């Protein structure tokens, strides 16, 4: 298990949202390769479908509607696990090996080791992990089975406009920078594995400007946990110290000198 990321060899996506035409080939290809059932959806008056990630939908195109002088236009956004360099899900997962990092820097998971605590659901900065009827974590794993066989992930393979580009993360970023693209996720959370070239400010896409592990999760894991261990041993130490310095409160035996039997 590679806990630290080799930024030089790290693999990932570059998502150039300006190229996306909203065809959702990525959604379909993902479902096909990962053998995911179709979700029943309903018409909510938008072309966006489905409206959220589900246990059977690891990536989707988010449609952001903009109205300019009566005409509707869209921003498209590929929503999926970002494979954070500093991943909240991995930080909180209590079951070693359930969520793990591959040598390529991908946040993968092993359902057999998942203990269904769902801590990852709370710790993800982007609200990505879902739990299905098997009560196990599921999310995009960058088609681990494909890339380990030298293929590109199903979504990138299917993308007709090269919105989704898979490859060595540093190369993808260098190329996008060469094309003067403003990037999202280059260094946040020790670099996202999925870097975006957005067409507007992150808020427009419903993304945090500076994504980070939720404060309460940070306090829980990085402050309370170590202080708690310190507090535990500190308390034991303090009691022992009290015993050998001030000592117990002894009661004088048989002050009354009776010695009358108990029972």
């Amino acid at each position, binding site marked *: 298990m590679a806990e630290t990321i080799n930024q030089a060899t790290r693999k990932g996506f570059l998502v150039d949202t300006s190229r996306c035409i909203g065809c959702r080939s990525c959604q379909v290809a993902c479902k096909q390769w990962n053998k995911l059932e179709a979700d029943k959806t309903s018409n909510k008056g938008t072309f966006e479908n489905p409206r959220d990630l589900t246990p059977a939908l690891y990536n989707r195109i988010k449609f952001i509607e903009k109205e300019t002088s009566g005409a509707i236009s869209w921003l498209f956004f590929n929503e999926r696990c970002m494979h954070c360099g500093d991943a909240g899900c991995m930080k909180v997962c209590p079951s070693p090996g359930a969520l793990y990092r591959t040598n390529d820097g991908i946040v993968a998971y092993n359902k057999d080791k998942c203990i269904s605590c769902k801590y990852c659901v709370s710790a993800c900065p982007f609200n990505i992990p879902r739990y299905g009827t098997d009560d196990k974590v599921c999310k995009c794993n960058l088609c681990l089975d494909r890339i380990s066989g030298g293929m590109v992930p199903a979504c990138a393979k299917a993308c007709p406009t090269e919105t989704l580009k898979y490859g060595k993360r540093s190369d993808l970023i260098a190329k996008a920078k060469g094309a003067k693209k403003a990037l999202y996720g280059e260094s946040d959370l020790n670099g996202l594995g999925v870097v975006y070239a957005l067409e507007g400010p992150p808020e427009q896409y419903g993304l945090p400007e500076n994504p980070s592990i939720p404060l309460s999760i940070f306090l829980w894991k990085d402050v309370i946990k170590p202080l708690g261990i310190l507090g535990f041993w500190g308390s034991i130490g303090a*009691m022992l110290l009290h015993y050998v310095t001030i000592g117990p409160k002894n009661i004088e035996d048989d002050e009354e000198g009776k010695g009358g039997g108990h029972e």
Partner: protein
Amino acid sequence: MKKGKVAAMSNYIERFSTSERVLHWIVTASFFTLLLSGLGLYSRLFTGYFTFFGGGQNAILVHKIGGVIFFFSSLYMYFNHKKDVSTFDEDDKEWVTKQGGYLSRDEAHFNIGKYNPGQKLFALYVAAATVVLGITGVFIWMPVLFPRWIVQLSLLTHGLIFVGSIMFVIVHVYLATIGNPGTIGSMLYGDVKKNWAKKHHPKWYKESTTENH
């Protein structure tokens, strides 16, 4: 309320009734079950504790069952002693200002009733912790049914209150055993020596002996 039976010839006086003792040990057993099953959830450092239960998933199940038992037995215990633990009088103030004599070897005497302020504080903390751990526990139990910020806050709070609890319990165990010789009997067979009662809880001793005369 039934106060201790005081046989005139005995050196002993009853401090806790049978039902009080049984209840206390139910709370204790569920607490330590929760501790063992929860350690692996607290940190990956303690993942080995999962093996006691045959894996993390079972540990979580035990933690949920133990949590329900602890919640109700602990609250029941609090309501049983509510009157004795939730009021503080002038003698208690005196005890607090002199830290109950625990920080000095000098002989100290306080006119303390059934419980001293330290014990009362512990009882009140446990009662409050039971409520908070119970409520946050429900959010953590079913996280997808609640807004994420509530569950995030619950994970934080559950851990924090647990830390306070384990620290309090360490002090509690110390003071009830080697820190105050003669005390543990009250929770085992229910009786303490009269000398113990006169030294630690004179007001209670006076009350319980006169009532039974």
